[in-house]
């Protein structure tokens, strides 16, 4: 090929990649702009603090915000200890390069690749039909308490979905703790457990936090896992017990978009709800990024 052709090719390629980037940015801008444009006017304190009324054509979204917060709180309580312990086991306790560790890692990776709806079905089959039923049989003489969709089952299902995030970011955080810190701890006569507790965890806390926030942000945005496991179309009360159903932002959006009796009347509410949901997720992701970069800087300084 002659020089001219090569030059032309280079320019063409540069232009193509540039355009691809521009397209992505444009798309994001259009989506966000559209949502902000339609969603912001209807936003108000009242909207955030009252319940929907008149078949969701009026009122606010407070129960959905409350339910989302409750859900991710329960999820966090479940997923953080489990994920952190798994990561600690894999990084610090498990024999290096053993088949078993390989298996666990592969399982976690695959878990991350499972479609969300499958988690939803699993939650229904395992938590509600299996665990919930058993609980009812054993503790409530067969009366229906836990063998039905409930916030606890939705939270546990969501915890499974977000488990890989927490495990992976905790593992990463543990890996960057310098080997020498482990050695020092041992050289001072620490047991493995003391080494983990006093040396590793304090240094990994940022990574754990990042993972947790990412998990929460994912959990707040996913609808499929809670579809069959606890989310309610509409509830006249706020959930106060673990075996009650709940309203949730993402699901509320879905419901309003597909089941509204009056599409035009629902539209502004729908936009505002989406805006709130997006803002929430963005804020969470942003916090995660901030913490992560803070950790990176601290690490760079420590080297």
């Amino acid at each position, binding site marked *: 090929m002659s020089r001219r052709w090569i030059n032309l090719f280079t320019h063409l390629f540069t232009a193509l990649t540039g355009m691809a980037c521009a397209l992505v940015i444009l798309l994001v801008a259009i989506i966000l702009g559209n949502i902000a444009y339609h969603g912001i006017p209807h936003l108000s304190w009242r909207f955030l603090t009252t319940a929907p009324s008149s078949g969701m054509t009026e009122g606010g979204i407070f129960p959905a915000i409350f339910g989302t917060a409750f859900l991710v709180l329960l999820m966090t309580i479940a997923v953080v200890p489990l994920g952190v312990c798994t990561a600690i086991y894999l990084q610090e306790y498990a024999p*290096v390069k053993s088949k078993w560790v390989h298996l666990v890692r592969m399982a976690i990776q695959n878990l991350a690749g499972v479609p969300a709806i499958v988690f939803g079905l699993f939650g229904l089959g395992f938590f509600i039909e299996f665990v919930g039923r058993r609980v009812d049989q054993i503790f409530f003489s067969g009366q229906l308490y836990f063998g039905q969709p409930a916030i606890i089952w939705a939270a546990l299902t969501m915890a499974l979905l977000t488990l890989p995030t927490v495990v992976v970011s905790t593992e990463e955080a543990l890996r960057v703790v*310098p080997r*020498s*810190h*482990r*050695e*020092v*701890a*041992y*050289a*001072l*006569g*620490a*047991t493995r457990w*003391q080494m983990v507790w*006093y*040396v590793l965890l*304090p*240094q990994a806390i940022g990574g754990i936090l990042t993972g947790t926030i990412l998990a929460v942000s994912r959990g707040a945005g996913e609808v499929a896992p809670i579809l069959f496991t606890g989310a309610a179309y509409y509830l006249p009360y706020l959930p106060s017990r673990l075996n009650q159903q709940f309203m949730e932002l993402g699901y509320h959006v879905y419901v309003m978009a597909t089941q509204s009796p009056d599409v035009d009347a629902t539209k502004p509410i729908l936009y505002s709800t989406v805006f709130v949901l997006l803002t929430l997720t963005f804020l969470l992701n942003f916090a995660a990024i901030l913490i992560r970069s803070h950790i990176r800087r*601290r690490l760079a*300084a*420590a080297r």
Partner: protein
Amino acid sequence: MEELLIMSQAALADSVLKKEEVPAPKIQTKDLALYYGNFRALKNVDISIPPQKITALIGPSGCGKSTLLRVFNRMNDLIRGVRISGQVFLDDQDIYHPDTDLIALRKRAGMVFQRPNPFPISVFKNVAYGPSIHGMASGRELESIVERHLRATGLWDDLKDKLHIPALSLSPEQQQRLCISRLLAVEPEVLLMDEPCSALDPIATARIEDLLFELKKDYTIVIVTHNMQQAARVSSSAGFMLLGELVEFGKTGQLFTNPIDPRTHDYITGRFG
């Protein structure tokens, strides 16, 4: 080199004059060998480390100095595939005996590493770490322990008003002193130091050497160093290692001025290494 000779001669004269009787060794190995997998990193090592003295280990890179040092508090146990034969005694305890309490052993023989490696927490917490995990003290008592050991390394006056600043904000020399304080706080008997000055500038190095001189009154110190001047300056006994063997071990003055083994002679006169 000349300077080195003069100093060593001084040391030699010193030891000749005193004619002290030989005390029981603090650490002793008998026909020690160590394997990393199939690689033999130490062979036939018989060494007797005298108590409350500074013993230096010198030798070219990769000869097994660090490995030998890490034998003394069983840090090599952390590495997979390490095998050991022979015996190692701390006082008269065989530390590779199956019943050995590793925690207790490492409490008695602690380590200072090549690069200063304080934990990324406050100065105070660094020193308090050992006493806390061993449940040795808390509250006021812990504070006084921290003070005592920061004093021992000469950090107290500089840091007493800022005990809660991050340890990583200290200078490298201060960090290394802090690491020594952190170690002293678990009340060890033996200090194992693996090139503790190699990350420091000459002035800081000289000051740390002064500190070692202070410390040897109370502790048995084994120091690995690449710096022969340093070995000559600070130690009273020295060992020269080559390819996993302890070629020669003796009084520092003797080893530097009048080595018995030609390989030692070649090394200290700079013919290789």
